[in-house]
């Protein structure tokens, strides 16, 4: 990030581009866009230092609507393009916008590798468990048995868990939030922005047209509080409408307990900076119906970033060998002179 902060304070409006937003009415993408535009002014990053890079998909139209620099690239490749952007200019704040198909189907490999390199990018995955843009085929996060245009008898692919994949790819920051949960979403965007290294955020996003019921269990007011576990660093894992349930370890397995039955002391205390990723992995595998879905920051640890290390090597090389001199370079090795 640039050292010099812009004086002029920016507002939401400064981040709204002149392009007409073209998602379906009711699409969850709107809320995410709005939150992003709200959060950015507070980060103190000059607008010209912000770059949004996306792949292809409904979600990937995002950059057009942000009045920053942006690339709407090709399907699945945004992490690789963003890696180039960040390596060329580490002062930039680089955001990757991607969908479940874009990131985990065609783009799975780049996703994996940008995480493991810990390139200083913020990766937001809009998970709607469907291919929106191509009009409704199942995606790598669609559930088994999901009937879609391309799976009329139900999908026979087991779904990927985006957070698990991210953890196993050595991610230094892993979080989950949701389109409709505006306050939480905005907090998580801020946390992601503040992280140095690849910050991965899964955002549950509603595709009202092709998969409108995917997230009912996390939005229906009857059940959502029993299905979501809000993570707070240093706090025990407690959830439920009445905050009457908690998670503790039973041998090697986490289990849900009633707070009326057990002492709070027995509960797992959330530690997002736990170095060994298997704790974050365990959280990432907690799913309905038996377990609540963790929302918030599962993991946040600090490691040198790829772009940092890359530039460090340049600096070191200059220090060791002096700033490159072409004439010297050409004349290294055997030469001879003709006069």
């Amino acid at each position, binding site marked *: 990030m*640039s050292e010099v902060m812009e004086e002029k304070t920016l507002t939401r409006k400064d981040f709204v*581009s002149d*392009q007409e937003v073209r998602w379906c009415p009711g699409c969850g993408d709107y809320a995410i866009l709005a939150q992003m535009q709200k959060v950015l002014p507070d980060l103190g990053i*000059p*607008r*010209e*230092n912000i*770059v*949004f*890079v996306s792949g*292809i998909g409904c979600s990937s139209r995002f950059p*057009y609507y*942000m*009045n*920053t*620099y*942006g*690339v*709407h*690239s*090709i399907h699945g*490749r945004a992490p*690789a*393009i*963003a*890696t*180039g*952007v*960040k*390596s*060329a*200019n580490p002062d*930039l704040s680089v955001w990757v916008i991607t969908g479940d198909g874009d990131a985990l189907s065609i783009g799975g*490999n*780049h996703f994996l*590798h940008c995480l493991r390199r810990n390139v200083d990018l913020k990766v937001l995955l809009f998970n709607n468990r469907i291919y929106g843009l191509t009009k409704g085929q199942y995606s790598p996060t669609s559930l088994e048995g999901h009937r879609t245009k391309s799976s009329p008898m139900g999908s026979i692919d087991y779904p990927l868990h985006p957070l698990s994949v991210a953890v196993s790819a050595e991610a230094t920051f892993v979080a989950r939030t949701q389109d409709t949960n505006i306050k939480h979403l905005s907090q998580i965007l801020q946390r992601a922005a503040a992280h140095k290294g690849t910050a991965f955020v899964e955002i549950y996003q509603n595709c009202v047209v092709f998969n409108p019921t995917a997230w009912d269990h996390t939005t229906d007011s009857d059940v959502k509080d029993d299905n979501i576990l809000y993570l707070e660093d240093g706090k025990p894992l407690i959830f439920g409408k009445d905050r009457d349930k908690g998670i503790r370890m039973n041998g090697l397995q986490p289990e849900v307990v009633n707070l009326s039955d057990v002492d709070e002391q027995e509960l797992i205390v959330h530690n997002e900076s736990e170095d060994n990723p298997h704790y974050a992995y365990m959280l990432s595998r907690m799913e309905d119906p038996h377990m609540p879905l963790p929302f918030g920051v599962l993991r946040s640890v600090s490691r040198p970033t790829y772009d940092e290390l*890359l*530039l460090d*090597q*340049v600096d*070191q*090389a*200059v220090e*060791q*060998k*002096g*700033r*490159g001199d*072409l*004439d010297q*370079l*050409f*004349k290294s*090795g*055997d*030469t*001879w*002179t*003709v*006069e």
Partner: protein
Amino acid sequence: MAENPAVSEAFDHEHLADERRSVVILFSGDSGDGMQLTGDQFTNTSAVLGNDVSTFPDFPAEIRAPAGTIPGLSGFQVNFSADELYTAGDSPQVLVAMNPAALKANLSELDSGGILIVNTDAFTRNNLRKAGYDANPLEEENAFGEYELVKVPLTTLTRNALEDIDSLSTQARDKCKNAFALGLVYWMFSRPLENTVRFYQTKFAKMPDVVEANTRALKAGYNYGDTIEAFSGRVRVPSRAVVEPGIYRRITGNEAVVYGLVTAAQKAQLPLFYGSYPITPASPILEGLAGLKNFDVRTFQAEDEIAAMCSIIGASFAGSLSATASSGPGIALKSEAINLAVVMELPMVIINVQRGGPSTGLPTKTEQADLLEVLFGRNGESPIPVVAPATPGECFFYALEACRIAIRHMTPVFLLTDGYIANSSEPWKIPDVDQIEEIKAGNRTDPEGYQPYMREAETLARPWVVPGTPGLEHRVGGLGKQDVTGNVSYDPEDHEHIVKTRAAKVAQIANFISPLQIDGPEEGDLLVLGWGGTYGAIREAVTRCQAKGYSVARGHLRSLNPFPSNLADVLKRYRRVLVPELNMGQLAFLLQAHYLVEVEKLNKVQGRPFQIREIMEKIEALLD
């Protein structure tokens, strides 16, 4: 005229020897036998002595075969001469065969009357079997009648010479047999040892016993020559008489590309971002650049070629000079992303070091069969400029030129080389760095009137605006777009307009490139037109045919898209046009389509460069 610090007094008055204008030596042995290193040393020493040199290393197929087999062979052919050279020679006059496989594979190539040096120690029953010999050919009478056979028990002699170096294992000592062989060849051609001794000292600086062993073996080989007088006589290949003054070094095509890219970045005052995935024969460019970080070179070893290509798009968007290289399969993989670069109209260089195809094909062999692919291998109408250097040394200039075109015209540019020029080497006159023109890469910073796809009149280039510039925030992408504003557009006229504009932009580059030069008569019976690494063979063949009195001229295309603007005109001036290519006729196809002239074709798809004589035969057949 050649002042040569490495030439010791001792060698200056070698007058007893037979004199030859040029000689071709082929060193052949197991991959483990150090043939590349041996050939390299001989070449360097000869170059420093003032010869012109041209080399052709022939690596084993990608998998290391068990020692002793033909697929496991590693060869290094060097042509050194008192005159200007254009190829590594059609066939060797000296063959150094380190084992039976080397003999078996290369004997038929050796010129009749040539010298054949064999390591008799390696002719064991086991090795003979591995090479596919039923009996030991060295024991057959008259088997080598037409050659001068020199049998040397290389291993034994080397062991003997190094007997008392106790610190080294037998294995380590045996490794020095290539030094012994080199010493022997040095003796034959009256070359000094200093250069190579110095090389051992640097290379094995941390292992003084290895330096000692190699040096001793080298000298022992040299002395052996003196002792046995096996050869009909020593041969002298004098220095070149007329050479452009300057400081010279040897350079391979891949090295020259590395230098060209770094020079372009320095001249544009930009960091160089290089994103690539290893692949034969392009990997040395990545490896070379990775060692030049002090030039603000940022190398990114990507997870695959798609990521490599995408990373350079990102880096270019963010303001770096950026480049990638690959070969066959990797170039195919990049095609989708290259199209994004075309539509984003950003500067970058894509290097294709062509190898034998299709598919995995012949990774270590050369071919020119990707020309149509780089022109047409993308969905939709997607024009990209293509430049192709003709020699290893030219790779420097054209890598630099490719960057210049990319930045001036805001477009990805293809640089087409091939396995042959990538790996072979020639003397290279080191350019005066200050004389190299700057590359103007001024990024626009003025928001006044800015539109992402507004264009320069002369080049149709759009402005290069990089993130970090206040007030010029904009979005670009791969969807259909409106010219000038760059807005997404599905409008029929907008689409047609921008498709035509992209085509015009690339076509216009013809105004910036030099016209095709002709060597030979201005008009006549035959024009031989080539491109890429076939240059040397074509040039030599045409020169010889001209000397024989044929009405034949020669041109070599360095820009394959667009073609030089005088090409149509040139083609009309000859009764016939011959295009020799290492493919099934791709340039010929383009010329016919563009200019409606019938083209004679000489095609070779054997993973090997042309021989001079093959081209001569074709020329003569056409004109007789």
